[in-house]
């Protein structure tokens, strides 16, 4: 009997891992309770029916560990959006439930399962590290829970892959941020088309860094470009001097890099103290290399770096100007790219709910409504690609400059409507 219940549940929820004893106890007692109630319906079908009923959003974010600042920023964006809209999306008042994944995949998976089983949230948002997004994919898919990924950029989450390894797209999963293809391939294509064809690679040696480097290389090769070698420090590497020394002792002057946060600061500082700018080396990278969290620490040391991203705080469009100004009225700081991702996720959800009149009871209609969402975001035109659920968005080529004492990303060019290939 016990074994039967476990297998059935595992199948229903799409577990691909063995149940722990605690999960088994929770799951089997829940199943026993459900069996006792005559004519019981599944919990997800009974909730989220009536328009006007509170909409429960579960946010899975890191509030401790190395990515704590990202989680804080995305929570702020959620509160900011709700404050602007009287804590309502369409006609539904909103309640939010936050869970801290602490950048530990197992902790995050357990928290997502709690959102499904216990909190019975209507929508799941957030998720910073890609391994966690991959880790909860099957559970979310099996529960038919709408999940709007507002950061994790691993390509596979919105793609067709063989045997769904390491992950694959789901009708219920949308992404309001980016895929690593989008911030890496277009700049490779762009630079090689402009005639800069030879690059050395430097990237953090983990899933996202290697993916970014590979996509950049594919873009480069499209126009006959090549890479001449690489260094790949481990993620969270304390000392960058050895790697920058390796770069200095090879002849290719153009260096494409993927680092973010503390790694980016360490890389840029070593790059300068070892004299690479004077020796003629030039820094390129995915946009996170020179986002505000990095620029406020390294300042003009990053000048001249060319990076690509789907947004910059300096972006010159009406929506962005209003967004930045409104944000600064509420908070004594500039919004960052994570704020934009979460804010757009909320906006997409809001637009879909408006189209549905707030009725989320039919999951297929909910999915369709999200697929049809399109609006002007601070980053430009925002719409989901209907086949992958990854955003179709403009990618900006940015150059770091110090102007009037402020070090900023100036927009030098735009690659319009970049779509992830989806496989």
């Amino acid at each position, binding site marked *: 009997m016990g074994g039967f219940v476990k297998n059935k549940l595992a199948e229903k929820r799409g577990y691909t891992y063995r149940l722990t004893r605690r999960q088994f106890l929770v799951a089997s007692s829940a199943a026993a309770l459900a069996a006792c109630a005559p004519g019981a319906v599944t919990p997800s079908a009974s909730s989220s029916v009536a328009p006007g009923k509170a909409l429960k959003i579960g946010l899975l974010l890191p509030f401790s560990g190395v990515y704590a600042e990202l989680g804080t920023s995305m929570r702020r964006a959620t509160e900011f959006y709700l404050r602007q809209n009287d804590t309502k999306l369409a006609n539904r008042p909103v309640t939010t439930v936050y869970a801290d994944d602490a950048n530990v995949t197992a902790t995050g998976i357990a928290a997502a399962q709690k959102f499904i089983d216990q909190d019975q949230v209507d929508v799941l948002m957030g998720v910073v590290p890609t391994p966690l997004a991959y880790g909860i994919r099957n559970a979310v898919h099996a529960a038919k829970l709408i999940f709007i990924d507002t950061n994790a950029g691993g390509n596979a989450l919105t793609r067709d892959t063989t045997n769904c390894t390491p992950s694959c797209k789901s009708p219920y999963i949308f992404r309001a941020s980016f895929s690593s293809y989008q911030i890496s391939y277009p700049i490779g294509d762009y630079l090689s088309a402009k005639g800069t064809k030879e690059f050395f690679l430097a990237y953090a040696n983990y899933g996202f860094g290697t993916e970014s480097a590979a996509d950049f290389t594919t873009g480069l090769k499209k126009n006959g470009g090549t890479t001449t070698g690489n260094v790949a420090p481990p993620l969270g590497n304390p000392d960058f001097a050895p790697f920058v*020394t390796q770069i200095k002792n090879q002849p290719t002057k153009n260096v494409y890099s993927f680092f973010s946060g503390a790694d980016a600061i360490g890389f840029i500082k070593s790059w300068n103290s070892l004299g690479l700018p004077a020796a003629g080396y030039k820094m390129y990278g995915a946009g996170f290399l020179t986002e505000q969290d990095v620029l406020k620490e390294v300042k003009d040391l990053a000048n001249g770096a060319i990076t690509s991203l789907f947004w910059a705080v300096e972006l010159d469009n009406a929506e962005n100007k209003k967004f930045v100004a409104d944000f600064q009225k509420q908070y004594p700081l500039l919004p960052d790219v994570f704020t934009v991702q979460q804010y757009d996720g909320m906006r997409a959800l809001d637009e879909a709910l408006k189209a549905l009149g707030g009725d989320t009871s039919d999951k297929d209609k909910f999915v369709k409504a999200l697929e049809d969402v399109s609006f002007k975001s601070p980053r430009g035109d925002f719409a989901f690609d209907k086949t992958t659920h990854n955003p179709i968005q403009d990618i900006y080529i940015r150059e770091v400059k110090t102007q009037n004492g402020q070090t900023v990303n100036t927009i030098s060019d735009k690659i319009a409507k970049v779509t992830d290939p989806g496989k």
Partner: protein
Amino acid sequence: MSLELVFQQALNGLSFGALLFILASGLSLVFGMMDVVNLAHGAFYMLGAYVALSVVQVTGSFWIAMLAAPLALALVGLVVEPLLLRRLRGRHLDQVLLTIGVSLVIVDLIGQLWGREVRSLSAPPGLDGSVGLIGGVYPVYRLFVIAFGVVLAAAMAVVYRRTRIGMLIRAGVEDAEMLGALGIDTNRLFASTFATGAALAGLAGVIAAPVFGVQPGMDTDPGLLYSLVVVVVGGLGTLSGAVAGSLLIGPADTFGKVLFQDVALAVIFAIVALVLLLKPTGLLGRIRIAR
């Protein structure tokens, strides 16, 4: 690798090793004296870096921070030892658990007080430039770090071997109970040793900040992780062990990471495993009699 490149990387390895020595010396001192593996050492190191950030912000001087951070940490040590650790003397496992608790509290307090964003500290004026060396320019600050490491090790050696305090410490390492029986106030000795260990961690926080950065998570990596590796490889609780450990680990980590970058993280632990297999007490460790 060309000879030029080997030379540059050796310099990187040496300065990294010097930082590791400064980082690990306090942990080694406390272990040798008190038989306590202070797992809050990484949190002390982190707190030192954040105190330095604030001091530099207020006073504008890196050098004042270099005095203030160790002093602040010494005070923390003077509170933690008598108030918490002393009650558990002789109960090693409980002491270790307690220091984990202390480190969790400190790290969370840092998050509350200073925020959780990534920060950094610049090298002080005068040391923030570069000098011409074989293979181009080299940052002055890293040369300063090497010099500082050498001076610190020499100063500690002199204190150990030539002063009354050093004699007490060596005697305490040998047999603290007997030292007490001879009329030495071991409570005071232990408290001041622990405070010195904490101060050294704070000092490491300042000196390492321009190289390693200041960010959440630094308490474990590089903080506790590398200081434990150095102390275990070099030999628990001896000054010469900490020197030997950092001299081996610094260059080994530097060369290992660039030569075998796909297994970069494993290189260092392969060395730890190898040393422990061949010499379980570490390179220069003494055999401790179980008590």
